[in-house]
């Protein structure tokens, strides 16, 4: 089944610069329906208010971190099936394991390139 590039994508990061980078890279991949949040709390609110097809989230944010957001998403009956990609500078194996145990769909370590982003998105959404 073809990937719906009009799906809403939520990018979550406390660095405005990174939000802008992700938005631009997603636009180059033809995903233009992008919304932003600067921490897990704001992200969760947005996820409950609208239908999103993908979450791309940083880990290290306050007050709600990326993994806390992930756990909330996976515990919510309506949200639990949303693909969730963690994009973070946390590159220790224990982080990856914890994210996997919390139900992450894929994991990208910063700094990353557009090709990696595309590959990880394709792995959770299907080829596009």
């Amino acid at each position, binding site marked *: 089944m073809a990937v719906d590039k009009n799906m809403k994508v939520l990018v979550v990061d406390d660095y405005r610069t990174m939000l802008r*980078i992700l938005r631009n*890279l997603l636009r180059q991949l033809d995903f233009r329906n992008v919304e932003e949040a600067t921490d897990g709390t704001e992200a969760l609110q947005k996820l409950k208010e609208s239908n999103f097809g993908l979450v791309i989230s940083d880990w290290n944010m306050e007050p709600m971190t990326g993994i806390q957001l992930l756990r909330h998403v996976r515990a919510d009956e309506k949200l639990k099936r949303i693909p969730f990609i963690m994009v973070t500078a946390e590159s220790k194996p224990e982080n990856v394991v914890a994210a996997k145990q919390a139900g992450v769909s894929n994991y990208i370590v910063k700094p*990353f390139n557009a090709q990696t982003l595309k590959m990880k998105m394709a792995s959770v959404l299907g080829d596009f």
Partner: protein
Amino acid sequence: MPQRKIDVARLLTELRNRFGDTVKVEEVAKVVGALLASGTGDVAGMSRKIYAELEALNRYIQSAKAEIASLRPDEVTDEYLPAASVELDAIVEATAEATNSIMDATEIMERVADKLEGEDQEALMDATTQIYEACGFQDITGQRISKVVKALNEIETKVDALVAAFGSELRKVEKEVKAVPEEASGEAPADEDLLNGPQVSGEGISQDEIDRLLADFD
């Protein structure tokens, strides 16, 4: 001369009751001093070795206090550490501004690329992608600098705790060190005193203000 007896156990219990398990170095020095005083003139009842150890401990504490005071821990917590944090925050701010300027320009390039076709379009789009990817440095450096700022805050807390542990005597020495008169005011600042840039936002003056200031000399 009769030996003045000191009930060490009682002294220690009193200290523990007053300060818990964390006792100020100053109080430890008092206990050591009291023990030494009690043995003065008649050390027969006290092992000479223990006496010597206590005396050495007392000297060590006094010397450590003087050394720490001369390091001016107040300067470290009041000036150097806060100044370092401000500079690091300014780096994050400046790199964020620069990164956003780069992306402003790149987004214009991308719009131009949309109007092109074929290889030219592809080459320009690839270039913009690479610029966006490279802009990720700001996020990484920002996070690293935040970690350094946190470490500086930790050091500040530890130094504060050290100063508190050494108590009022340390502050007394600090005041004495501070009391040394500074250079007479009204004289032109030394060259090294002028090396404080780049200034953080709000600390320096704008180019317009500099121009006006220079014009005042004409």
